[in-house]
């Protein structure tokens, strides 16, 4: 215990100065604070409202938040909100579910088969960057001016990102797990069902998040085509009539819709991906 190899590094000879080691950690860990956001938003809205009230912000440029809220309440009280939401949600649901189901099938094919991948990946790469509003005239011709073309616009818009998310997810499934499955003589379909699909689920869910927000963004474009009701149609009308208060109200509804969908998918992730470390 007592004798050690003699230390030879420089030793302070004087009465040894004693002080705590300097602290140099911390920082670089910004946290989403529960306080900052509400304060920030209250401040923003107060300033905006004040700006409008005192005439610093012209009503042509931006309505006061209270006016936008009034427009929203008018919408609620007139019972129109329900009609608009009903129409839009129906289109969103049909288009998104259709695009997702097709995207899952095609994406899975691209993720599993060389031949399918060869055809699908460049096809998707070429079609993904096409803006859907450019295709509206085509959709009108193909699907008419009824619900079909609106649903098709959303379906088309959600299909491609879903394909990309799915085959990306399949690619990222740990090959070690697949090899494990093979080493236990699991059948092809068992491997797909029990290893690849659950393994791709995190990627699928984040793909859904993206495709859902794309679907909401496309709502306005879709409802350009002869829609009487719908949040998008409401916004378009407000834009036509230069009714800025209604425009802001409509945009806020879309934003809330987007936030709700994103919250829902967050819940789904919490539930289905409980197993993640």
């Amino acid at each position, binding site marked *: 215990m007592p004798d050690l190899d003699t230390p030879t590094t420089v030793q302070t000879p004087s009465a040894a100065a004693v002080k705590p080691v300097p602290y140099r950690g911390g920082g670089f860990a910004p946290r989403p604070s529960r306080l900052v956001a509400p304060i920030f938003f209250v401040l923003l809205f107060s300033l905006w409202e004040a700006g409008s009230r005192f005439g610093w912000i012209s009503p042509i440029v931006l309505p006061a938040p209270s006016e936008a809220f009034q427009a929203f309440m008018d919408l609620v009280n007139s019972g129109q909100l329900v009609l608009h939401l009903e129409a839009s949600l129906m289109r969103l649901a049909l288009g998104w579910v259709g695009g997702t189901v097709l995207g899952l099938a095609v994406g899975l094919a691209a993720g599993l088969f060389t031949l399918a991948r060869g055809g699908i990946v460049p096809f998707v790469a070429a079609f993904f960057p096409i803006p859907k509003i450019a295709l509206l005239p085509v959709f009108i011709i193909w699907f008419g001016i009824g619900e079909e073309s609106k649903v098709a616009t959303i379906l088309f818009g959600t299909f491609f990102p879903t394909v990309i998310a799915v085959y990306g997810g399949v690619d990222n499934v740990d090959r*070690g*797990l697949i*090899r*494990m499955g*093979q*080493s*236990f*003589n*699991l059948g092809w379909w068992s491997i797909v069902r029990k290893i690849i699909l659950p393994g791709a689920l995190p990627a699928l869910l984040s793909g859904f998040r993206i495709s859902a927000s794309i679907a909401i963004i496309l709502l306005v474009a879709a409802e350009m085509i002869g829609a009487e009701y719908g949040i998008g149609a409401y916004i378009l009308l407000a834009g036509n009539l230069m009714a800025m208060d209604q425009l802001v109200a409509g945009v806020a509804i879309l934003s809330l819709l987007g936030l709700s969908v994103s919250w829902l998918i967050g819940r789904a992730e919490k539930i289905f991906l409980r*197993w993640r470390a």
Partner: protein
Amino acid sequence: MDLKLDGISHAYDATRVLNNIDFTIKAGQIICIIGPSGCGKSTLLRFIGGLERPTEGQVLQIGDPPAESLNPLTYIFQDFALLPWRTVRGNISLVLEDHGIRGTEADTIINDVLARTKLSDFGAALPKQLSGGMKQRVAIARALAVKPACLLMDEPLSALDSQTRELLMDDLVDLWLKEKYTACYVTHNLNEAVRLGHRVVVLSRRPGQVRDIVDIDIPLEDRLKHPALLQEKQDYLWNLMREEARAADLELLDA
């Protein structure tokens, strides 16, 4: 059932990885394969289990596997390869389902292997809740569930910290004493090799060739009683490999 490696050579594209490997894995024996990094140990093990095919030579099964064996050649992987979304029981059930074993039949098997690996209390846990050592024990339980004729283990302990490794090595020895399983055990760790192997196959640097085959004839259960003898074997192996290990370490990857 014995396994015979018959003149196995392999190349990935232009890189020769293995060169004319010949040896036999006898039933009831643990064969350890050691060699420097990148010499093709994992590749060789994939050939033995039929997950990949060598460019030359073949791996032969001599004799039929026992009839009750569901999966004669069964792997235990370095990274455990547990499905993170299934519980411990679910992970074991996975490898039974495809053989049509479900319900109480499966439960019996699962309870049995969990008991044998001292995991009975953890059937409902998810992999993320388990420490590394526990995860590997689950993987061992899963392997036992299919009644393998030969276990193929690729550095099963190298992802574990050294204390857990020590504990699990004891478990593997105990298990062998009870069940006398056949195994092909790939490792970097010479101490593991001399503690577990009846026979140690030493490979050279890439392209891997058999440099030496060392038999260790102390019974497994007595090995800890002969530290000097073991140390001697280990030093012998280390001397065989030291220079090659150093050279392998100095190699620039894909430079």
